[in-house]
């Protein structure tokens, strides 16, 4: 944070964050239902996934569509490492993230010479190739028959407190919560740092950023690798939480879902993306009857958001804040607030 300015927006954000964290910690006792707790656990995973996409798309302006594929890489790598080699989940998790990051880097190396639509298509293609591998390498992934019986994370012995087991949904929920909070903090720190500035500069005007001393290729690649790492972590958690994974969960459609979360939350906004991720995780579950219309709605929403609300929820809120807080005469810039 550049010399922490206590603007009205920052205070509000901190307050809301603390309150949300407290609610999140108390959630298992508020909800009293495993089903609803599961929804929030999945929200957490989706938040991590969407924040990853936000780094490459929201901060850097690159429409990278291989995201669901990288999510799958994290999931399958983690599941297979644990099930085939007996590795502990706690090693498989970072290993999967690292491997996903590597794959993301490779995709980036091949695709980053391209701009705009070309990049989108190339990365979408990579995503589809990855999906095809999941589907067709039956010996490794069991293909469409799904890879089940994935064990939960290994129990951790905590000195003095006994052994923490992850069989119960509540334990997994807290694990995911911790991961989500970490992801949010890391994302926020990146955004408000020299690295984040460089990425934003690339988004705004890549040529100008390059001429002003930002090595743009290196940073774009970094954005790819980071977003893939986030996807890998999310994938690993997902695999060991739901305990069964299948290729269809990592199809281009799921990238579109993440895309919708980022776009409707507000490109580059962390708070917006969090809210949108939770919304788009809960909504389809709570509106089960409308399941058939889900993707139709998502497609239409993407169009509607791009035309009417291009800055997403965060942008809309910023407008309201600006007009609501007319007493605050200073005009906030688009990068200071969360």
């Amino acid at each position, binding site marked *: 944070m550049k010399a922490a300015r206590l603007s009205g927006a920052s205070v509000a954000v901190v307050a809301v964050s603390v309150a949300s964290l407290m609610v999140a910690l108390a959630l298992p006792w508020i909800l009293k239902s495993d089903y609803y707790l599961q929804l929030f656990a999945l929200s957490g995973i989706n938040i991590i996934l969407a924040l990853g996409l936000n780094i490459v798309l929201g901060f850097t*302006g690159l*429409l990278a*569509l291989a995201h669901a594929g990288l999510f799958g890489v994290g999931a399958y790598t983690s599941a297979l490492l644990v099930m085939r080699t007996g590795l502990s989940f706690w090693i498989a998790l970072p290993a999967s993230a690292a491997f996903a990051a590597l794959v993301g880097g490779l995709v980036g190396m*091949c*695709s980053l*010479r*391209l701009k*705009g*639509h*070309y990049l*989108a*298509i*190339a990365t*979408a*293609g*990579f995503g*589809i*190739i990855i999906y*095809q591998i999941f*589907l*067709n390498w039956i010996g490794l992934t069991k293909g469409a028959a799904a890879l089940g019986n994935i064990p939960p994370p290994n129990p951790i012995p905590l000195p003095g407190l006994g052994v923490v087991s992850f069989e119960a949904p509540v334990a997994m929920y807290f694990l995911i919560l911790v991961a989500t909070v970490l992801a949010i903090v890391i994302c926020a720190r990146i955004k408000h740092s020299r690295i984040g500035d460089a990425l934003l500069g690339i988004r705004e005007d890549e*040529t100008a950023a390059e001429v002003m001393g930002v090595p743009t290729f290196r940073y774009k690649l970094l954005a790819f690798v980071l977003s893939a790492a986030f996807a890998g972590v999310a994938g690993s958690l997902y695999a060991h939480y739901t305990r069964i994974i299948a290729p269809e969960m990592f199809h*281009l*459609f799921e990238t*579109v879902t993440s*895309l919708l979360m980022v*776009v409707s939350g507000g490109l580059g906004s962390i708070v917006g993306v969090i809210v949108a991720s939770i919304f788009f995780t809960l909504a389809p579950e709570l509106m089960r009857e409308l399941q*058939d*219309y889900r*993707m*139709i709605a*998502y*497609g*239409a*929403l*993407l*169009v509607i958001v*791009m*035309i009417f609300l*291009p800055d997403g929820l965060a942008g809309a809120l910023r407008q309201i804040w600006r007009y609501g807080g007319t007493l605050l005469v200073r005009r906030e810039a688009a990068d200071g607030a969360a």
Partner: protein
Amino acid sequence: MLEYLLTLLVSGLVTGSVYTVTALGLTMVYGILNLMNFAHGEVFMVGAYVGYFLFAVFGVSYPIAILGAIAGAAATGLLIEAIVFRPLRNAPQLSPLIASLGVSIFLQNLALLIWSPTPRMFNTPYVDQVVHMVIISMSMQRVIVFVVCVVLIVALYFVVQSTAIGKAMRAVALDAEAAALMGIDSRKVIMATFAIGSGLAGVAGALVGPILILSPFMGIPIILKAFAVVIMGGFGSIQGTVLAGFILGITESFGVLIIPTAFIDTIAFILLIATLLVRPTGLFAERIEENV
């Protein structure tokens, strides 16, 4: 052996012609608006379904069904232009891109809802008719596909190079402002380009429908390959697109010799990546330096 190889070659030419026609529709829109329409594959799909319904359900003759497919596809394209691309004319580049992705998803799933995922068989009488050409033989349907596509490619080239509307299109593609100053109504030109480009995709769909299985998601591999062709051939170049389209078709055809069928679609990608690494501007593109 020779028979087999020749069959592969001819088959490759057929698929190549379809890819070329579809890609030409795509590159036309790109030339004018500087954006890739993700939903182009769905326009292809609409063409296939409209052709199917007219022919197989309403009993219309095949040529008329094809015309109907063109109309349906063109109408879809114009609708997309009006509802999605026109409002986003002045938005940053990412917006129409994401929006067209949204349209693509929307149309795929709308088709899924309306027409259900049951694969349909679009059976024209030509699928079973066999044509013998010297040592090889193939279905009449494929011959028709090839002939029609080649005719369309030639016709398009003629239209773009020599007719008034073609010149107007090229003018707007090069410099929309200057074209407007010359009295060209760029809105009409854009609409015409969309209509023609989508119509081409629709024809391709109706022609290829009988060979493939109809599904709401049939547009996905098509759009990816069309993109690959456009990128390989280079922006704005008809010759490049034609060359790239046929190269892809033939490579895919011979690809069955070495790659398992499930991965045939990846050939397009491999070629694409190869192009990007070796000659990023495509085979024939004019090198357009960014105006700094």
